[in-house]
């Protein structure tokens, strides 16, 4: 059953001024519970505006967002409740840290939600564990952490609210390759344990290919594709036209196929490619 659904969702900035600009235009989409949705698009394609409408930080100019079939703006006074159910991690979330200790900062959202005592403590520990923050860091000031650790602490702060839908806006931007890989696998692991719905905005096609069940492609405020990564990344030319590319390994395998090697279509990750090549070599009796 669909947990989140949008109907003809539109948002225009600066209505009635010379700077009027439509950021999201007539977007209808339906997402099932437990899915991981990758969201890609050029800078300024409306991805960030779209995800901010999912938890009511931005009120749509027209159209609606349905959470479990109920319009989130039915009761505007209770919009805060929506934000506990749809957790949102912004780009560069480390700039939102403010408390004296990491523990307090992670607890901020959970306290706002109404947690206290042992329950709060358990939640904080659990979120820290999910994001790979070690226990001894919890008593430190968030401003003494390294960049990667700050990022983890900020993500843990959102996870601590235990949202049913987790929106991550470029969570790996600006991290080193190792930190990237680690954070990504922790997000996957968290998703597998919690079975929540995840929106994952990214510029990295490799990351999207690795985590997404379905991919939304946005271009100039419109939703242009919504399909499995395999099908989306098969449309190389269309993606190219809107300034996006397919994962590097997909390009390599497509190139090899064009050179006459019979690899199967739709290879998205290095692991898949590795298996495919080993398989081929084995069948040809070379290893």
């Amino acid at each position, binding site marked *: 059953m669909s947990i989140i659904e949008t109907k003809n969702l539109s948002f225009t900035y600066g209505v009635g001024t010379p700077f009027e600009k439509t950021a999201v235009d007539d977007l209808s989409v339906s997402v099932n519970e437990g899915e991981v949705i990758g969201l890609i698009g050029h800078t300024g394609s409306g991805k960030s505006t779209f995800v901010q409408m999912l938890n009511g930080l931005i009120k749509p100019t027209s159209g609606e967002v349905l959470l479990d079939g109920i319009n989130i703006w039915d009761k505007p006074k209770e919009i805060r409740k929506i*934000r506990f159910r749809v957790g949102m991690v912004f780009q560069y*979330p480390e700039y939102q840290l403010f408390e004296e200790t990491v523990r307090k900062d992670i607890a*901020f959202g959970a306290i706002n939600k109404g947690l206290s005592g042992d329950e709060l403590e358990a939640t904080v520990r659990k979120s820290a564990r999910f994001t790979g923050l070690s226990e001894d860091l919890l008593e430190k000031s968030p401003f003494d952490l390294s960049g990667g650790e700050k990022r983890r602490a900020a993500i843990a702060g959102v996870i601590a609210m235990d949202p049913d839908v987790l929106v991550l806006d470029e969570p790996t931007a600006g991290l080193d390759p190792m930190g990237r890989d680690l954070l990504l696998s922790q997000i996957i692991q968290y998703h597998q344990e919690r079975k929540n719905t995840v929106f994952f905005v990214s510029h990295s096609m490799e990351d999207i290919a690795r985590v997404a069940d379905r991919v939304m492609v946005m271009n100039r405020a419109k939703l242009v594709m919504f399909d499995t990564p395999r099908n989306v990344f098969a449309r190389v030319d269309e993606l190219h036209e809107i300034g996006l590319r397919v994962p590097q390994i997909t390009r390599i395998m497509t190139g090899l196929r064009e050179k006459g090697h019979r690899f199967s279509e739709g290879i998205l990750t290095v692991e898949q490619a590795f298996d495919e090549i080993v398989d081929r070599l084995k069948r040809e009796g070379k290893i």
Partner: protein
Amino acid sequence: MIRDVALGQYIPGNGIVHRTDPRVKILLLIAFIVFIFCSFSFVSLGIVTAAVAVIILLSDVSLKLYLKSLKVIIVIVLITSLLNLFYGTGDPIFKWGFISVTMAGVYRAIFVSVRIILLILISSCLTFTTSPTDLTDAIERLMKPLKVFHIKVHEIAMMMTIALRFVPTLLEETDKIMSAQKARGADMESGGIIKKIKAMTPVLIPLFVSAFRRAYELAMAMECRCYHGGQGRTRMKTLHMKGSDCVGIIYAAVVLAGIVLGNIFFTAVI
């Protein structure tokens, strides 16, 4: 949102007011402030009001924006004119308990509110039509004589430029941090004033942290470019006086003459 504040915002345009030399504009603003406070009769006040209205109509900025900048100070205008209403001397024309209103009080109230409104309008006109860089350039140039007193004019102007440059950046940052904290369930709308102030902590701390970070980075970047202040520095854009600037000065002179005559030949009411 915070960005809707119209006060002190530059609106690009190409009208005569936009093209006037910023130094002349600043001097004219100072002159007009003096004019506004030196109008003692209704005729003089009328002349200044008309003069300000002409400048505003010529300014190539929509009247809506001027109204918006007035909206911010409407409360101040109301309070000060109300207070002045009760402070007049002379025969009361209205009395209720200890409150008495005199004709002088009424005049005073009218003068005070018109003066505040004119002040805001004329200074908004300057900021609407002059880009921040032009403005600080002009201030630096106008303050140059102060160097005699060992005042570091260039440094002051540089600080002003930097401060103005970072206003939009910090506003954007505030917006972003507020959204992030709201996403974590921060409640900034409800509750009394103390609760609201407390609710600002999660916004203010990250904002200060990032402001200091930016300041540090900027200082570093300036140092890397061997910046060393005003000594022997040339500028990319030098300001030049044009014929149209003289028109502004003549205009101010005419208005001044009108006010002086208005003050002499008509009874001063305040």
